[in-house]
């Protein structure tokens, strides 16, 4: 019996499927914004669920307890996702697609807001559902908005900081050119000069966008169309490529994510280091850190002054499928109140979104990086706000990676990015 005819049924399944075109979920997602459907539940009150990624430092749980104590009839249940951003994203998508009414309020990464809003999954935070954003740092509000409407209330923010070795660098550089000049100090001390994160992953989008934005370029224009074929974008990306080529960024940085680069800096192998605020806490306390007492912090260097950091952070969004939107709305407002914001900062090292808190003496004493971070966030540019973010970040990562490795010229990389992003948005 040599005949593999037993494989046929598998093929038959395919044929069968062709004749079954009526079943299955049909065409995926549909935009369902507005309409009577969304109106429903705006006044609904009752128990809700708050969904967020892993609560690293136990901030959410005490806050939820506090809320529940004050609202016994509108209790919040905390649903914790994994610690991995991709999985948090996929989990939210699955539940929104299934119109799960239990995902009332979700913590949404700044880069997902546009996608979720365009899919019609998020309740616009306007009119009855408005959230006061007056005291918030402007870029965080921008990152929570899509087409001029706020869809997710900023809860925590994040921005890049330039860490440096106080013992070796007399005055912190403010421009990229200054920093590159100081690389001679690194050479004299036989250490690497500068590094951010350049492995092909989301962090590369962060770093490449910073390079481009800091020199006046931008990935997308105001209408959401790619605008990468500009001299500014070229100059920005070229800075990184050049630094790689002449060794100012050590070659191993091409494998770095946040943790690998932090380690290199903490081991004393880097003069300058771009990373998030969390490095401050670890580099000053970890036993293995060799930079404990010589850690300097400043804003990212730009063309003529502070550079444009990419914005990180999370916002709270209300699902259109929620039945208790009034409670959800109150809970979102509760999260952005000053008291809670302070708690996020002290307990969880999460950067607040309220500008005033960055000058709060008590907070600054605890988190000395706050003034620098404020500059960083004020100058920050949200990563491209687009419903096609997954395709856009893919285009940026792949092409800038090739450019950094010298496999592609900067022009070619930017023009490929431009074309890739154009095709992503063209599919309608």
């Amino acid at each position, binding site marked *: *019996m*040599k*005949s*593999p005819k*037993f*494989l046929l049924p*598998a093929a038959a*399944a*395919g044929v069968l*499927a*062709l004749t*079954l075109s009526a*079943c*299955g979920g*049909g*065409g*995926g*997602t*549909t*935009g*369902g*914004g507005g309409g009577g459907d969304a109106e429903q539940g705006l006044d609904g009150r009752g128990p809700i669920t708050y969904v967020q990624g892993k609560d690293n430092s136990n901030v959410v749980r005490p806050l939820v307890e506090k809320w529940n104590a004050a609202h016994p009839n509108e209790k919040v249940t905390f649903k914790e996702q994994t610690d991995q951003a*991709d999985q948090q*994203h*996929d989990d939210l*998508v699955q539940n929104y697609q299934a119109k799960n009414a239990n995902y009332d309020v979700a913590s949404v990464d700044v880069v997902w807001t546009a996608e979720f*809003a*365009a899919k*019609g999954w998020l309740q616009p935070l306007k009119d009855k559902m408005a959230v006061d954003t007056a005291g918030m740092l402007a870029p965080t509000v921008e990152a929570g908005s*899509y087409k001029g409407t706020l869809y997710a209330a900023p809860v925590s923010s994040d921005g890049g900081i330039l860490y440096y070795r106080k013992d070796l660098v007399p005055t912190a550089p403010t421009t990229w050119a200054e920093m590159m000049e100081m690389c001679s100090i690194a050479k004299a001390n036989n250490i690497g000069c500068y590094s951010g994160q350049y*492995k*092909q992953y989301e962090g590369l989008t962060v770093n490449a966008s910073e390079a481009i934005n800091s020199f006046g370029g931008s990935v997308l224009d105001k209408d959401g169309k790619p605008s990468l074929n500009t001299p500014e974008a070229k100059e920005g990306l070229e800075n990184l490529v050049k630094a790689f080529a002449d060794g100012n960024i050590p*070659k*191993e940085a*091409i*494998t770095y994510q946040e943790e*690998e680069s932090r380690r*290199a800096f903490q*081991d004393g192998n880097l003069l300058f280091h771009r990373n998030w605020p969390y490095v401050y806490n670890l580099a000053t306390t970890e036993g293995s850190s060799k930079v404990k007492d010589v850690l300097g912090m400043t804003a990212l260097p730009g063309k003529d002054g502070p550079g444009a950091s990419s914005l990180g952070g999370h916002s709270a969004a209300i699902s259109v499928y929620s039945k208790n939107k009034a409670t959800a709305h109150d809970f979102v407002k509760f999260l952005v109140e000053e008291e809670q914001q302070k708690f996020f900062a002290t307990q969880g090292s999460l950067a607040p979104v309220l500008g005033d808190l960055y000058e709060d003496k008590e907070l600054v004493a605890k988190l000395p990086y706050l003034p620098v971070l404020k500059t960083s966030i004020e100058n920050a540019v949200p990563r491209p706000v687009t*419903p*096609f973010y*997954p*395709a856009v970040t*893919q*285009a*940026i990562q*792949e*092409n800038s990676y*090739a450019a950094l*490795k010298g496999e592609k010229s900067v022009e070619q990389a930017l023009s*490929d*990015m431009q*074309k*890739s992003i154009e*095709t*992503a*948005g*063209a*599919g*309608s």
Partner: protein
Amino acid sequence: MATELGPTPVKSPASGGTPVHHGPKGVGEDNKILSQGKWASWLLAPTVIALAMVIVYPIISAIVMSFQKDAGLDPVTGLFTAGGPAGVQNYVNWIAQQCAAPGGGTVACPPGTLGAQFWSATATTFLFTVITVTFETILGFWMAMIMARTFKGRSLVRAAVLVPWAIPTAVTAQLWLFIFAFEGIANNLFNASILWTGSEWPAKWAVIIADTWKTTPFMALLILAGLQMIPAEVYEAAKVDGATAWQRFRLITLPLVKPALMVAVLFRTLDALRMFDLPYILTGGANNTTTLSILVINQIRQGFNAAAALSTITFIIIFIVAFIFVRFLGANVVEQSGATGKGKK
């Protein structure tokens, strides 16, 4: 994994299963098939139902969705709207590497889109499959031969072989990422400065090494079970006849272990063709380590219907490979060896 068997019945290596009735069929023969058929349907029903519910239903629904366009953006409202029927466009787009053009129609996918990666991902997937399955088969066979011997400390070896496979993949991938970091233990130990995850061939080797390490035990265990089914008497008889070790391996071990071996190789191949977590965590798909499954999951985030088409294409590719396996390499578990006299040579 079992230790010594009890008294093993002697069995001639040439006869596999029962003699199957292949003679001229009488009426009674037909009845027998019929009654056996009834039995068989009862015995097979649970398996078929379980598979139908959790695998066939999703496959069919994915195939149906693959003929739908992904949602497009309405430029006025900024909201996504359902894409409508796509015909075979999703399939054509992948195979011809065409992407939607800004002005309508399609253009060749520029580098940086998922569409541009289809053929390279296919090549990478096959490269990984061929190399890892080959390594795993050879290593696994060797390990199984050693474990089948009697020596002090055999249990220790058997336990050790289980370890790589018993560590959850989620941990394994992190462990290898940690080991292959630039300042990690691999470079440190061999005093090297290889950019394991940062350049093409080292990245590929990192994935291959990690995968081989992780799944060789699967091979070894299956082959070991096959070895243990061979009665010791057969070897003794061959020894008496003066067969050399190589002859014993080639004429007894290999043919007798072949059914188990082929099942192991077949399933490893099907798994390797769907490889996902190791390259995803180690390299994120950079440096030409994007496999078809990585492409599928990246595409799911950009639009499920196109991803469903890609999954179906992957399914067909794997189907063809399995077909070749069964047709030409004899990975046929129910081969009627006894009666037709072919199969075990």
